[in-house]
């Protein structure tokens, strides 16, 4: 089985601030060595497990200097080939659509059986987009694999467990070629010691394959990053409880954020509150709160 794992570098979680990110969009200096994005760690572990003790796997990273960190760890995990897919700008400037296109174009020119991608918090579109571009099936949120079937040329497949919504799981048999996505923590990853990492760095110098981006442009404009800002919560729409409000008000509330500002409840109501009362009162208060926060439907 030929396994490819796509990995990316990220900045350490506590460093994720607008100023830092902006700097890193320009260049990742040595001082700012990135770290492996956590779900990619699970992806590496899965790739390693899949390819078994004897088989090697290939690791691919898209971007510029930042790829080094991810590829180092990939090597330390046992990737035999580390491929750097060079982009014109740092990968932080590119969105998932562009990256998925590039990855798919590169993979399409080769013959991998399984492509494993990390998917941080499960809402990254890249693995699924890659699969879609390649026309391969994607098994999302893989949290383990059971066994290989006897591999002959007519039927080559693996058995995987996949997490679904609301705690459901299923066991699937997936034929090659297939894209797999994993979230961080799904596959308990091995620790990579500093020594192992150093050895990998040693081996990396001679073992990175630098690859030019394949030509894939379809003539359409890519997504463009306009600005990075500190997070600012969006003003929430609220259902005005008063049914007898005027049509104009009703329209306003339907017009969404900006328009509904005036009907919003005063801010101090949102602050921490400590309430006393009987169990029934407390439970009702709690349910009211959950409804207000839309954790429970309002019906």
């Amino acid at each position: 089985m030929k396994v490819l794992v796509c990995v990316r570098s990220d900045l350490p979680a506590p460093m994720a601030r607008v100023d830092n990110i902006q700097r890193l969009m320009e260049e990742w200096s040595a001082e700012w060595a990135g770290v492996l994005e956590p779900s990619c760690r699970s992806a590496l572990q899965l790739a390693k497990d899949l390819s078994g003790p004897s088989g090697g796997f290939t690791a691919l990273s898209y971007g510029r200097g930042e790829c080094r960190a991810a590829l180092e760890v990939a090597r330390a995990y046992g990737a035999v080939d580390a491929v750097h897919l060079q982009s014109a700008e740092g990968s932080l400037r590119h969105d998932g659509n562009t990256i998925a296109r590039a990855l798919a174009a590169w993979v399409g020119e080769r013959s991998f059986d399984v492509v494993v991608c990390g998917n941080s918090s499960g809402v990254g579109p890249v693995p699924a987009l890659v699969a879609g571009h390649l026309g391969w099936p994607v098994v999302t949120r893989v949290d383990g694999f059971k066994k290989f079937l006897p591999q002959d040329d007519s039927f080559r497949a693996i058995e995987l467990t996949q997490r679904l919504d609301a705690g459901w799981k299923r066991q699937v048999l997936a034929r090659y070629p297939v894209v797999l996505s994993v979230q961080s923590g799904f596959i308990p990853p091995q620790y990579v010691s500093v020594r192992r990492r150093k050895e990998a760095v040693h081996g990396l110098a001679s073992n990175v394959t630098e690859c030019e981006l394949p030509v894939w442009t379809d003539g359409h404009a890519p997504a463009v990053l306009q600005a990075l800002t500190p997070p600012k919560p969006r003003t929430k729409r609220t259902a005005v409880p008063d049914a007898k409000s005027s049509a104009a008000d009703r329209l306003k509330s339907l017009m969404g954020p900006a328009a509904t500002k005036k009907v919003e409840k005063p801010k101090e109501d949102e602050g921490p509150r400590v309430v006393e009362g009987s169990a029934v009162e407390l439970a009702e208060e709690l349910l009211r709160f959950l409804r207000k926060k839309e954790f429970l439907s309002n019906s």
Partner: protein
Amino acid sequence: MSFDGAIVEPTVLVLADKSAGDWSTVTLELLGDAELLANKVGWTVKVMVFAAPGAVRDEDARKLAAHGAKEVHVWEHEKFGPVLVPAQYTHTLRSYLDESMPRLILCPSTPLWVEGVAAAVAPYGALVASDCVSVKLNVRSDLELVRNYWNQKTHATWTFSGQRPWVVCLHPGVAGVGRPNPALSAPVERHQAIVLEENVETLEWFPPHPSRLDLVEAERVVAGGRGIGGPEGFAELTQLAELLHAAVGASRVAVDLGWIPYSRQVGQTGKTVRPRLYMAFGISGASQHLDGMRDAETVVAVNLDKEAAIFSVAELGLVGDARAVIEELVRLLKPSERAEGARAGAAAALSNV
């Protein structure tokens, strides 16, 4: 507008999520945003639902209409219940897109939708944005999105332009649900879906259980500490968890006392969780416990002690007996009563018309 030969229609397609019984909140939030955009440029808001036969009743569809849907397309198939699998609706979605390509697709930013929709739309060259906080059309009629980055520590604004269809996945709970207009209605079309998973075959299904729900990925966690009084307390908490679709967590003391296994411990020597909702029952809020749940979006705490440290991180603090509150909550949330409540609510809505 045309796209690679196919006609791109002036519609916004909202993928509605009914996996938790009723329409999820984010579905209604999506409708609010869809209607806003549609009103601005004259698009039509269409809703697409994947559901088991009979799971979407006409009154459910009416609710969508009340929130702005102009057409409701229900695709039915046995395999769409009790749990929806991303790969199982992609074929249906694609065959729909082959016929009528919307300008914009809106869906919840949850694994179920992001990965399923992305896989379906990639061949059409669509641009996909996940984890969005807000979306609007700018003066050049480009789509302008604000997206969460790095665990919501940063916002990034992106623009989508060009002729390709756009897909926007909205982070649940940020937009808010607008006021419904029960006077509105929409035609409901029901179709027989075809589920076709190419090259992937399901061998076995494993249904969920609150005590097996992965704490780390759970959107909601209900946790108990010493104040919950014993294993029976946890049995009740588990019931509550089931009703709220939450995972069960615990403090170290509760684990020490053998009321619940270690795998459920939240804190410095247990799991670190980042749920959208964290409810702490009878937990004092020692620093080592807070370490594991500080990043929860919304914290609710029930504790007898008004001075308990947990209240310092709680948005809502309730001073009272944990067991009693849990029992009340379970009573109030029990499906039978809830169904009744829902029916009463529906009746009230109708009488408003």
